[in-house]
């Protein structure tokens, strides 16, 4: 084996690959099962965007908080939420992460620092400011990461949160997951000032743009930005330019895409392929090792679906439990 030229040791490289593969398989399985009518509600798939969640979350621990989006499965998995509990939640079962009452867009696990996916666009940003303020007051070096799409970045909640985080110098990283489309509207039609880095600059914080399909680009930039926030350097914005392999939601005919666009991005911008080819080429990880992970992950997803289908639905008597929390 050659000397490792990467910024992660082999164990962490394998961990990153396993996380990305788990997200991909999880989402592809949902794509199939949703089409069969097995899953209630809506699902928005993260497939194609795995490098972003993984490259960021590799720098976090359970004490760090994240606030996610409607497209939150990848963030959950990368933050360490149990895949079986997620699958059961999406299937609406009482063994789910939120006892089957949240579904795809409300998966949360506070023990992992995952404050929740969110059905309201741009709603994660104010939440993460609160979590970051708590970390700052406690002085525990915790950071908060919020994700927002290129569309929801126009929400007032997001823009107000940029301001608040800058004014209070909060340890927050605002991640703009720019997959080019706000549902069906291409970014250049809907985002003023044309660059998220410009937006960050306008609020007095640095902004950085990276190729979100390159795990190492995200990992390296996120590492510097998160370290800066932990050290009291204040908020920053990270724009990850990436691609989604499926529609805005499952069932989206994607008529807004150019002919051949999906095929082209799947062929040239698949973050899993880019990562695996690079680590194999460098001689740090073998193809056999990655294939062993592929088999392990496939078994895990299959088992999660089997367990979810076998689990009971919530009872009518569960309807009013866990709804309000008394402080």
């Amino acid at each position, binding site marked *: 084996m*050659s000397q490792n*030229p*990467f*910024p992660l040791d082999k164990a962490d490289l394998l961990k990153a690959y396993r996380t990305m593969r788990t997200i991909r398989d999880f989402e592809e399985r949902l794509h199939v099962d949703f089409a069969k009518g097995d899953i209630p509600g809506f699902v928005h798939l993260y497939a194609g965007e795995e490098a972003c969640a993984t490259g960021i979350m590799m720098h976090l621990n359970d004490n760090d908080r994240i606030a996610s989006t409607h497209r939150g499965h990848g963030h959950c998995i990368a933050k360490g939420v149990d895949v079986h509990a997620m699958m059961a939640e999406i299937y609406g079962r009482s063994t789910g992460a939120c006892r089957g009452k949240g579904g795809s867009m409300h998966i949360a696990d506070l023990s992992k620092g995952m404050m929740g996916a969110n059905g309201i666009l741009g709603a994660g940003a104010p939440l993460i400011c609160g979590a970051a303020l708590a970390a700052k007051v406690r002085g525990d070096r915790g950071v908060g990461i919020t994700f927002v799409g290129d569309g929801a970045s126009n929400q007032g909640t997001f823009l107000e949160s940029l301001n608040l985080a800058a004014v209070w110098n909060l340890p927050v990283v605002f991640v703009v997951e720019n997959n080019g489309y706000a549902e069906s509207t291409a970014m*250049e039609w809907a985002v003023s*000032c*044309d*660059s998220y*880095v*410009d937006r*960050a*600059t*306008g609020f007095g914080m*640095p*902004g*950085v*743009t*990276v190729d979100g399909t*390159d795990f*190492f*680009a995200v*990992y*390296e*930039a996120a590492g*510097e*930005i998160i370290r*800066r926030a932990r050290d009291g350097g204040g908020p*920053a914005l990270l*724009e990850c330019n990436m691609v989604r392999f499926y529609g805005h939601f499952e069932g989206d005919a994607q008529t807004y895409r150019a002919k051949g666009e999906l095929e082209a991005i799947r062929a040239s911008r698949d973050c899993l392929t880019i990562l695996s080819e*690079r680590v194999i*080429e*460098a001689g740090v990880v073998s193809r056999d090792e990655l294939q062993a992970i592929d088999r392990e992950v496939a078994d895990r997803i299959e088992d999660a679906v089997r367990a979810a289908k076998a689990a009971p639905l919530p009872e009518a008597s569960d309807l009013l439990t866990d709804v309000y929390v008394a402080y």
Partner: protein
Amino acid sequence: MAPVVGIVANPVSARDIRRVVANATSLQIADRANILLRVLAALRACGVQDVVMMPEHGGIRSHVERGLVRARARGEDLYPAIHTVAMPVTGTAADTHRATREMRLAGVAAIVVLGGDGTHRAVAAECGAVPIAGISTGTNNAFPEHREPTITGLATGLAVTGRVPPHIAFAGNKRIDVSVNGGAVAEMALVDVALVTERYIGARALWRTENFRELYVTFADPEVIGMSAIAGLLEPVGRDESGGLMVRLAPGGSETGPASDPGTTTLLAPIAPGMMAPVSVTDWRRMPAGVPFVPKVTSGSIALDGERELSFTERDRLSLTLRDDAFHTVNVAAVMRHAGQNRLLTGTPVPVSADL
């Protein structure tokens, strides 16, 4: 026929990690558009009536358009007509390559470039004999000189309208060609090629000096920032001299204090904006033009003009060759000096022929 000037304005330069690790500048899109309007006004003042611009979806053109609409509404004739190269937009360096090629084929007299070293490199790769007028809107920007863009626009306008003799108006520039496995030129750099041990492109920028191994520069300028500064603080080599400099570096550059290897010297160099870093220098030598250099580093990444661009392994054979007079730039300082000496912008300019 009146000369047409090409414009390549890159909306995505100055966006990388150096805004976090080194407090680098963020130049907003609206600022880039304002710079372009200043250049356009200067070109028009020199008699340029048409420019052709690279299309982009980053917003520069739409901001510029507001300026044009406002001028038209006021009945002011401030700007040349803007035409756009008919081509699809990919948002990558391929756009710059293609737009430059199209401009060259269309016979533009010069190309004004707004961007960093990377944008200028992309234009220089395709511009052929068409001269470049560079304006810095990137991060490190060792290649484009720093000055008010209005002056760059004026100099370009004076140069392309023939009011300054070509031997004064245009200057030759060097480049370093990088060949991989003996093939045709794989890549090239305008200022520097750095070989680093990181074998991933990642966030592209260079700031971990402990990974620097070999450095090849077309000019070694202690007044610029980045790799050229390392060379320039050892042995200055001018832009207009033949050949460049090659510097070998050792691990341990990130440690303060004496170099870890007794055979090395520690140099403090401004490697990025606001970032003075120690680098361990083993030795350096002149890099004559036309002589292929084979690096000793066997694997890692090749950084061109301060950004990691491609990785290589033990199986790859690299060769680097510096070329003198590889492409031309508008010599803004010489043009403006000539304009002043010959009162080109007064009511009755002295004819150029009086100079010859």
